[in-house]
């Protein structure tokens, strides 16, 4: 939005000012001059990035999945990065986007948990509080035009209540029974919704694990920034477990039969 009344109703630039309605060759700059503008640099793009995170509600709690890859552009740079991070005893956060920003977020949350523990006031932070805190941080940073370039999923169980919600670099939040970030929002989300919506209270652990594995496999087939090595996090009333890295079984033999995209002679 252009905030300067003198520019209102004028063509956006002289390229489109076919009738010369604006007297100056260039639009005026009304702002002050910042001598140090060149020196101040904010995160304006993610560098080392993680791709999708998937999460669903099921009978006993929340299950989350993310692969172990941190990419540097199209380079598969780090292949054993953990993108699921337990916070306290009831919550796991999963992150896509810039991994250095994610590590910063981890350190903030870990400090907060220690601080809350030291208070020993009989209160502990659950997923609801952690999500609220995180969304205020994310919104505050976007309002400074210096965002933390992540999309985060917060999942957990506390006092018998399941909680699953999302927050991203704009401070946008929502809660749903299935959430997928990044490419997963396009490819995995429909599969997850089909399996979970309406079955949140009946879906077993094995079924939840199976649907997440299948979604991760589909993502590995279609998302060029993904990896066939992933981890699962499970949050139930019994606590948090983050699995060891798992390997996806895939089959590429069908590729031989595809005709028409490559340089085949026939």
């Amino acid at each position, binding site marked *: *939005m252009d*905030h300067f009344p003198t520019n209102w109703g004028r063509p956006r630039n*002289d*390229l489109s000012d076919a009738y010369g309605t604006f007297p100056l*060759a*260039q639009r005026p700059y009304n702002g002050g001059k910042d001598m140090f503008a060149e020196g101040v640099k*904010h995160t*304006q*793009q993610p560098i080392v990035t993680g791709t999708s995170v998937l999460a669903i509600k099921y009978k006993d709690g929340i299950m989350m999945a993310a692969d172990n890859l941190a990419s540097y552009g199209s380079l598969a740079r780090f292949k054993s990065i953990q993108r699921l991070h337990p916070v306290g005893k009831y919550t796991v956060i999963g992150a896509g986007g810039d991994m250095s920003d994610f590590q910063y977020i981890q350190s903030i949350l870990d400090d907060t948990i220690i601080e809350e523990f030291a208070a020993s006031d009989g209160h502990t932070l659950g997923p609801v509080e952690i999500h609220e805190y995180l*969304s205020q941080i994310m*919104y505050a940073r*976007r*309002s400074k*035009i210096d*965002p933390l370039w992540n999309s985060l999923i917060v999942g957990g169980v506390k006092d018998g209540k399941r909680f699953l919600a*999302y927050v991203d670099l*704009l*401070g*946008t*939040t*929502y*809660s*749903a029974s299935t959430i997928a970030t990044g490419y997963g*929002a*396009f490819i995995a*989300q429909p599969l997850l919704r089909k399996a979970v919506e309406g079955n949140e209270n009946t879906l077993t652990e094995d079924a939840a694990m199976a649907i997440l594995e299948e979604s991760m496999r589909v993502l590995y087939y279609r998302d060029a920034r993904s990896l066939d090595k992933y981890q699962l996090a499970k949050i139930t009333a019994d606590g948090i477990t983050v699995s060891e890295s798992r390997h996806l079984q895939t089959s590429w033999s069908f590729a031989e039969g595809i005709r028409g995209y490559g340089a085949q002679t026939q």
Partner: protein
Amino acid sequence: MPDMNSLAHPQQHQFNPYTENGGTILAIAGEDFTVIAGDTRQSEGYSIQTRYAPKVFRLTDKAVLAVNGFAADGNMFVKKVRQRLEWYRHAHAKDMPLRAIARLIQTMLYARRFFPFYVYNILGGIEEDGSGAVYSFDPVGSYEREACRAAGAAQSLVQPFLDNQIYFKNQTPAQDTSHPVHLPLHSVLALVIDSFTGATERHIEVGDGLEMYVVLARGNPALQSLQDLPGAEEVTGTQAEERVFVIRRDLKKD
């Protein structure tokens, strides 16, 4: 022709602090009641983020606020309005009157004139004189009191329908009759439901669920019928004379 200034620096894609999260809100004032409604879908681009993210919020027992536009700004704005209303209650031992809330919202929005909350607000409720009222705002605080207003993704579909059905625009009354100035609650609710089913049919960003808040003025004769309405839930906060109800309906999820 590109100017030399922009050529001097490499072209960078800039961070955009805003997005649009779809959905539509609507409010209609009756003589002694107001209906404030919104769908519950939240989306970004072609993706549905969630099927249930409320856009309509009870502020007091006589004021309900609907917000639409950039969801993060909307939630933050509602949070800040509520905080100001709480301070007012602590200072004056009563709820802020509707017209005062409207002016408060104007100043809060205009305070951010140069980094606006990208949110269209519609405030509905009961005025101190007991009349139903709707105030509508633009993102920087321009506002007016109206009888009805639609905003959001399907504003251009819903508002003309309301102009025709509430203000009777382009309708000629039958011989020796005149159009009613105020419609009764049941016809207003029917119009709201029709507006949203229509918008759901024709706009991809509208659907999933409908939340209708009804604020009744003290002694409203419609109270009994509302209490008997299946699915209507009373959400009045205190033993105030105004009564607030929510009615929820499903909308198509495709």
